[in-house]
């Protein structure tokens, strides 16, 4: 394991491939902002980190796009890239849905984990992708995140995780639920070892993901307008039988209620993360 790691580390970080880029072009060279209706050329939008130029609406980023926007020169070494889901419960339609999402997204699961440098700081990075089963957490997502936290402990690196998830994955039943405990336990070990974990909550982060690792950052950041919460809005409305405020369960709502450290616009995110990494690198041996 160690030898293999050393060998792999000496390889240059590979530039992250972008299979989805080809697929997006035929879908339309224009994009209409769902909030203000402004139409932008897709290429321009991507150049602007998928933020609407008129109203600042943050479109969802794919995991490869996110990684390219955060790591130095887009260079990233992926962990566990071949791990895929089984169908442990024999759940109706599950295998078919996994296959369809693989084909659609070019991903193997709802999270990509790996390492790269950010502002020169070696960092373990995890990025969820809501195109794959709504970013839901089953065994693979839980295992990859737990292993990434384990690598952070082994290498004494900080861990930054971008969440985008509808919660635990129903089709793996209680095994999905238990991934909440597995990931949180892995973070407990990081915590005990005095290592930095930064959670960046992006749209949407709800249910079992919101109620496990994504709320456990030493610093919890969120993107503007991101939907973040435990229970679904409709379930709450049915329970309390009252109209909920418009900003309910947004990043701004959470900030107001003391549940977040900062809401950070996407254009400032990389610099903010570098600053946080710099604060926590002080006095540590550089590697």
């Amino acid at each position, binding site marked *: 394991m160690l030898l293999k790691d050393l060998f792999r580390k000496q390889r240059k970080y590979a530039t992250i491939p972008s299979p989805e880029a080809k697929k997006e072009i035929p879908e339309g060279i224009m994009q209409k902002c769902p909030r203000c209706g402004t139409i932008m050329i897709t290429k321009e939008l991507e150049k602007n980190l998928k933020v609407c130029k008129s109203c600042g609406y943050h479109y969802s980023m794919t995991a490869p796009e996110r990684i390219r926007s955060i790591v130095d020169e887009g260079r990233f070494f992926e962990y566990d890239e071949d791990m895929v889901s089984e169908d*442990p419960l024999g759940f109706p339609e599950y295998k078919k849905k996994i296959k369809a999402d693989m084909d659609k997204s070019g991903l193997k699961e709802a999270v990509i984990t790996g390492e790269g440098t950010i502002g020169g700081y070696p960092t373990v990075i995890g990025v969820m992708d809501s195109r794959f089963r709504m970013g839901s957490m089953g065994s693979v997502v839980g295992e990859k995140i737990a292993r990434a936290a384990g690598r952070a402990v082994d290498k004494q690196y900080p861990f930054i995780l971008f969440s985008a998830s509808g919660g635990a994955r129903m089709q793996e039943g209680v095994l999905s639920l238990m991934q909440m405990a597995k990931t949180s336990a892995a973070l407990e070990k990081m915590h005990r070892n005095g290592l930095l974990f930064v959670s960046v909550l992006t749209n949407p982060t709800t249910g079992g993901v919101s*109620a496990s690792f994504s709320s456990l950052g030493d610093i919890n950041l969120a993107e503007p307008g991101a939907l973040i919460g435990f229970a679904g809005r409709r379930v709450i409305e049915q329970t309390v039988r009252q109209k909920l405020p418009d900003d309910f369960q947004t990043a701004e709502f959470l900030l107001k209620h003391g549940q977040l450290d900062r809401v950070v616009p996407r254009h400032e995110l990389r610099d903010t993360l570098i600053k946080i990494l710099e604060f926590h690198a002080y006095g540590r041996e550089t590697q």
Partner: protein
Amino acid sequence: MKNGYLPFEKPLAELRDKITELKKFTQEKSIDMSDEIATLEAKAARLEEEIYGNLTAWQKVQIARHASRPTTLHYIRTIFTDFMELHGDRLYGDDPAIVGGIAKLDGRPVTVIGHERGTDTKDKIARNFGLPHPEGYRKALRLMQQADKFGRPIICFIDTQGAHPGVEAEERGQSEAIARNLREMAGFKVPIICIVTGEGGSGGALAIGVGNRLLMLEHAYYSVISPEGAAAILWRDAGKAQEAAEALKITSADLKALGVVDQVIPEPKGGAHRDPMQQSAYIKEAILENLQPLLNMTPEELVEDRHRKFAEIGRYTTIVPT
């Protein structure tokens, strides 16, 4: 149905009524029909075996939700002695949907915590039917930290439909409260035994469920989502909860097979509500049996043991790149 019988128990209920009637009749008339009665009783025993030996997931859910099913406070009062309830999270309030405190287990002080659904209507409303708010989870955390400090084993009773879905719960950080418990429980240096006694409803159940051992009553269920919720999402029809209950694999036998539950605790015929004292005895026996080996572990071994348990849960595979 009367006497707390559930719909699928109807044939058995009717047969038992018949036997009771016949016994009364023969006594009044002083006639001997003991052969007939014996035959009917044998038939009832067979029927009982047939019904309770082949319960579907949905039938088990009905038993787990039975209005007379014993609650956490019953178990605490009958399994332990000297229970002293402790209140509040020291931050916001005291959530009666979770109870906790210190008690003695065969003379040994332990910290006991559990969801409490309440018994009569007034009590149930006061306890929000066992659906906790963040302050409930934070009270549980405070009591567990106290146990950790003083080296007391922790026993958790899990019985909730889930965390309360409400505006204030979100404002006060329901997600953070649950997440923090998961992380902190993973790191405590004392033995933790968790027992699903009724409904194990998703994250709201798991928030006091990160133990060295997870035990589960025979007819309890533990699920990532309620069968009704799953049916609504899958088939846009909450009425298909029966199918969802099967598909989700939520029974004690399922969880044992999936490697999540360590031991299934038997229930009296028909469920815990048929003989609550017997149920307490079964649970106590299981707690003692599981606690003993944990008491022989060092604090570091206990933490390692718990980490290993959860690290091993899950199913995945790797594909060989071509």
